[in-house]
């Protein structure tokens, strides 16, 4: 009989747990005070991109600390939800909850491309301003959303300067490319090759690996020798393994590497990888070695509060929040979509990567820096070698 009792208790506990959570969150919807500005945020706290979730949260909170969590006299309330990783429908459910229950004035995120595509139709139908620090692809129904803003530039524009640099400065004439089999990687490679081919360069091989790839050695041993190898972007499982496999096949001596995101090699990982990655070139907006005051101030305050080195994506989130705060200041805290949209469009601000402004197609314009891995004072660092000023995206956008 005793065992039956335990079972019964478990069942009752079980049901009460689920019933209990419903009113809790429903009641939550009742707190509608207009004094504070509510900002809803979708972050990848679980799933394959969980490493950036925490970093985004830190950077945003850092930006809010700098204004004391207040703008135009109103308190700012940050409501953070997990966008989940693989299940793109979860991001949409959370967006609905933020809009309908928490009555957020504007929505930040989600980060992962799939989640962004599934949330986009919902946010544009309400409408609600949706500022993102993930890079937009050329996909029309993403970049076509009238209330969508992207702090970083598009994928192809991000790697366009790298293609120019490779041809003009390094005298590279032929390249072979590798990337994961999804549109983010296609467009990163496309940006590089558009610039490279427009100068007269030749692409002799393109390889695409599944997103969940674990072992890149077969692709590397299948490489055709060219002046350089270009990496689009690789699925999370083993992107770092590619570099050590590249080294184990002795290819660093034969072919320099150009990568499209400096974020692929964050600083803790670089120290682990060691000297083999010296000379790898990449392109990014924010680098810890930048000299401008905003960059140094962001770096120092991030390291002081979180004891770790911020990377380019952290700077995107920090810049994103700074831009939003500037726009909210301009509108006196009013989050009406159209007024906020106008305010965002004429935000001009100096941010860690440099002077920032939105293009008419609502894509962020900041200077891009081609940089190289060098050992500076005993630590491996990304050192800028050439700066390209921010300019409107060459890819078609829809103002």
């Amino acid at each position, binding site marked *: 009989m005793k065992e039956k009792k335990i079972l019964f208790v478990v069942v009752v506990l079980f049901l009460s747990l689920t019933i209990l959570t419903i009113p809790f969150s429903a009641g939550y919807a009742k707190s509608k005070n207009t004094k504070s500005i509510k900002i809803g945020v979708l972050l990848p706290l679980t799933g394959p991109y969980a490493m950036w979730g925490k970093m985004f949260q830190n950077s945003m909170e850092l930006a809010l600390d700098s204004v004391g969590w207040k703008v135009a006299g109103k308190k700012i309330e940050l409501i953070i939800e997990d966008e989940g990783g693989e299940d793109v429908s979860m991001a949409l459910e959370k967006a609905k909850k933020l809009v309908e229950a928490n009555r957020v004035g504007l929505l930040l995120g989600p980060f992962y491309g799939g989640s962004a595509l599934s949330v986009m139709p919902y946010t544009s139908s309400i409408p609600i301003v949706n500022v993102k620090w993930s890079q937009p692809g050329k996909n029309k129904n993403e970049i076509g959303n009238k209330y969508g803003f992207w702090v970083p530039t598009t994928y192809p524009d991000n790697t366009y300067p790298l293609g120019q640099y490779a041809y003009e400065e390094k005298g590279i004439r032929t390249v072979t490319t590798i990337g994961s089999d999804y549109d983010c990687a296609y467009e990163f490679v496309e940006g590089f090759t558009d610039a490279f081919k427009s100068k007269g360069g030749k692409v002799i091989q393109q390889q695409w690996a599944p997103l969940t790839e674990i072992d890149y*050695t*077969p692709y590397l041993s299948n490489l055709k020798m060219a002046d350089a190898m270009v990496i689009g972007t690789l699925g999370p499982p083993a992107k770092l393994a590619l570099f050590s496999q590249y080294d184990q096949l002795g290819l660093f001596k034969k072919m320099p590497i150009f990568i499209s995101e400096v974020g692929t090699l964050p600083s803790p990982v670089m120290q682990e990888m060691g000297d083999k990655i010296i000379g790898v070139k990449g392109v990014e907006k924010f680098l810890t070695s930048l000299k401008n005051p905003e960059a140094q101030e962001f770096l120092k305050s991030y390291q002081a509060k979180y004891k770790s080195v911020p990377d380019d994506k952290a700077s995107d989130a920090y810049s994103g929040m700074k831009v939003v705060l500037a726009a909210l200041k301009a509108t006196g805290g009013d989050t009406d979509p159209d007024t906020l949209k106008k305010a965002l469009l004429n935000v001009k601000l100096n941010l860690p990567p440099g002077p920032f402004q939105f293009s008419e197609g609502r894509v962020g314009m900041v200077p891009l820096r081609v940089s190289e891995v060098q050992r500076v004072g005993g630590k491996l660092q990304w050192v800028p070698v050439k700066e390209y000023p921010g300019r409107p995206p060459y890819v078609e956008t829809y103002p």
Partner: protein
Amino acid sequence: MELIILNVLNGVSFGAILFLLCSGLSLTFGVMGILNLSHGALYMVGAYVGWSIAVHQGLNFWLAVLAGGLVAGLLGLIMERGFFRHLHGMINEQVLLTFGFIYILTNLCLWIWGGVPKAPYTAPSFSGSFDIVGDWTYSKARLVVTGIGIVLAAVLWFFQEKTRIGAIIRAGMDNKEMTIGLGINYGLVATFVFILGCFIAGAAGVIGASLFGVTLDLGMSILLLALVVVVVGGKGSVQGALVGGILIGLIISFGKALFPQISTFLVYLVMIVILLIKPSGIMGKKVQDR
């Protein structure tokens, strides 16, 4: 010409990793009839533990392999004693239970080691490469891994075919009731084999990490491959896991080189074909239709 040699080497070394992973899974599946889907998660936990020991603390690589194995073995003990003991023969309960463990272990790893993927780490004597053919060089780590795979295969084969415990295990696989009838404490042997399987998974994680590094969704992606190998190789036999592993490794490496578009389908297609022609796998024991 070198392309073929390289691909064969890649296939065999990747196959060795798959063997390291699947030998444990195949044993536990064969001996206890339990399909432990969280085997991949144990592989990942082992790899993370190995990273902490080898890179974080900077200790000897082989100590990391041992540590990874022990932690995974301990988890295996908890799983077997606490849960699997009550679920003999209830296959869908087992599948659900092990799937629950995947969720738990992955989130625990996220909690303990954070989200940043770990770069491949290996013993100092194995990093680097050596010239084999033309101007191509080949990584020492991959050959070491292949070597470990072969050595483990020999040890497990000897353990299964020649030792007394091995005989008990094989008898148990054929007819469990009869083995128990002979007065052998089959439960104890089964538990020992389960923990051994998990130990091998954890150790394989560390060895595999010397090639692939460690990330959070390694548990799931490696599991899918492991299931294919166990089916192709045949459950319960060490030789099956080795042959299955090498075969799948070769299919994958040649698939990626020659027709990358369909390499992922290929693996599942092979699994389905084998399941239809010979459900017990290439080397597996004949399946009695109870």
